[in-house]
């Protein structure tokens, strides 16, 4: 038994030494090395998850420019709401990018982003997209507009709008499309009820919904055009339709007030807004906000009935009217559907 004890101690000591050595490795700076000499600055980039591929390329391209020569980045990607809440509770950030404006407003209210963040020509937005309908290859169910989603027998996939703020683009696009076609608010609400009745899975994020769809479930997925392009670029066998009446998605980004390197952070934001940066976004499926950006090779059809969230009252009003946990329009619809389901 003595030798067993010795063996145990020896093994534990060896394991301990190995762990501590690992710990030393893990805590050293893991970000990519910037070229050249001079003082290096590390910027903290906190973004939502879908533009990760784009930002990885943007960072590399930025580091080739004179302004980005000695700039390193730590990157963090996650659900837009999660990231926003993390920054609001103290996650150090120099550059933040979210899926929708309310996640940025949260940081303005917390005093982390200046209220003037959206006073530039693009109102603080750096990319656009449109809500689109993703179908199986060849569109076997012949889905062309949002109205088709309310037809019986159509299996719709869209994420839960209460789990994911980004999912609200989808719902508002569906609702707004009916208004655009001349329906009244009551009729549009009735349509939403029928459409939501057809939803068979409500994932907690847009990307998860995309993967539910590519995994074989559902006839049509309400998603963003950039997500559809991303899926196709990753070999997924899908088609997508940009309906004539659909919602313009606008994604904000800003530099934080609490940034320790505001000059470099602003330089990165300027690069993202520049033609070079916007071109990288275009190559990753996002519509540039800059009119002069090069979108060669990408197909970005302009829908004839494109409308914006401003047309529907702006995010603050929409969040209250449609997604209030007690009195929202969508809340009521889900409850009515639930009552009928629970019976």
């Amino acid at each position, binding site marked *: 038994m003595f030798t067993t004890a010795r063996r145990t101690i020896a093994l534990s000591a060896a394991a301990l030494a190995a762990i501590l050595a690992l*710990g030393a490795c893990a805590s050293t700076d893991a970000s990519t090395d910037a070229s050249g000499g001079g003082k290096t600055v590390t910027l903290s980039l906190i973004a939502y998850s879908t533009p990760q591929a784009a930002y990885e390329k943007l960072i590399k391209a930025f580091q080739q420019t004179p302004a980005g020569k000695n700039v390193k980045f730590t990157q963090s990607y996650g659900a837009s709401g999660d990231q926003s809440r993390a920054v609001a*509770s103290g996650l150090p950030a120099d550059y933040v990018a979210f899926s929708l404006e309310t996640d940025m407003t949260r940081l303005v209210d917390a005093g982390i982003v200046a209220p003037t963040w959206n006073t530039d020509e693009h109102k603080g937005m750096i990319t656009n997209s449109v809500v689109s309908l993703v179908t199986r290859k060849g569109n076997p169910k012949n889905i062309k507009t949002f109205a088709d989603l309310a037809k019986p027998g159509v299996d719709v996939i869209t994420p839960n709008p209460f789990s994911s703020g980004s999912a609200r683009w989808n719902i508002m696009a569906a609702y707004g499309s009916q208004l655009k076609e001349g329906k009244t608010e009551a009729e549009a609400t009735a349509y939403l009820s029928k459409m939501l009745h057809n939803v068979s899975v409500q994932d907690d994020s847009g990307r998860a919904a995309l993967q539910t769809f590519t995994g074989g479930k559902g006839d049509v997925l309400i998603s963003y055009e950039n997500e559809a392009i991303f899926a196709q670029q990753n070999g997924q066998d899908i088609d997508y339709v940009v309906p004539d009446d659909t919602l313009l998605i606008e994604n904000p980004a800003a530099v934080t007030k609490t940034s320790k390197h505001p000059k470099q952070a602003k330089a990165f934001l300027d690069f993202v807004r520049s033609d070079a940066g916007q071109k990288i976004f275009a190559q990753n499926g996002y519509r540039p906000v800059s009119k002069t950006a090069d979108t060669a090779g990408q197909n970005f059809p302009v829908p004839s009935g494109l409308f914006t969230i401003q047309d529907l009252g702006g995010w603050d009003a929409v969040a209250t009217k449609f997604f209030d946990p007690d009195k929202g329009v969508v809340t009521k619809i889900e409850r009515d559907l639930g009552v009928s389901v629970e019976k």
Partner: protein
Amino acid sequence: MADVTAPVAVPRRGVSDAVRRAGIRWGLRLIALAYLTLLLLIPVVLVLWKTFQNGLGPIADSLSSAQTVHAFQITIVVAFYSVLANTIFGVGASLLLVRHEFRGKRVLNALIDLPLAVSPVVVGLALVLVYGRLTGVGKALASVGINVIFSIPGMVLATTFVCIPLVVRSVAPVLEEIGDDQEQAAATLGAGPVETFLRITLPTIRSALAYGVVLALARSLGEYGAVAVVSGRLVGRTQTVTLLVQERYQNFDQTTAYTCAVLLVLMAVLALLVSRLLRPRELST
């Protein structure tokens, strides 16, 4: 059947008894193994199949990326400290609960299990509320250079949180079962509490402790939700393997996701095999 004429009654067992015994044995085997096969074996085999589906090349690629290597480093460090903390706590709490009397014992007993019932989202919320960088405690710690939330210590806290009952609940029932006769004997022979613990208690709970530690290790390796909130998801800094798996899967890189998951599983299996070697020969295996 049994012809009882001897002073001590020993009924002869008939064939039907043996058949019944065999029936019970096979019945139990069948049900238990069927359950395990359906619920555990088939899903695990599926994961393995999906991992090796495209051959070994993509696996080697995914494992050699710097991001993957860092994720494993971070996971191992966090798991190590969490398991260490829980082992010390687990043994101490087991001894306290089984061998000592005090007021509030039932409450403490229930409180130890409570961490498991906390949703991972709430674990993160709770830790951020108390140790976040904008709270009093968080700021005080930061001023002496200790960053808790969005850094490794916070992740260790979150991982420890979700594993708290695991070692206790493996060791305590065995302590209860074994009884403290030997410890009492040692005390009467003049052994101090530490010596009694090291020479008598510890060897007898070694087997159960090994089970508890391996379980805590497995949970520490595989924890996602609570660590996700508390980590800040900083790639290369606070991204554990579970976070990496999530991110890679979301970016349609299934190979890396499944490969990393399988590696985590292998680490848990390895820990179990190592614990087997360190244990004394079991009585009944």
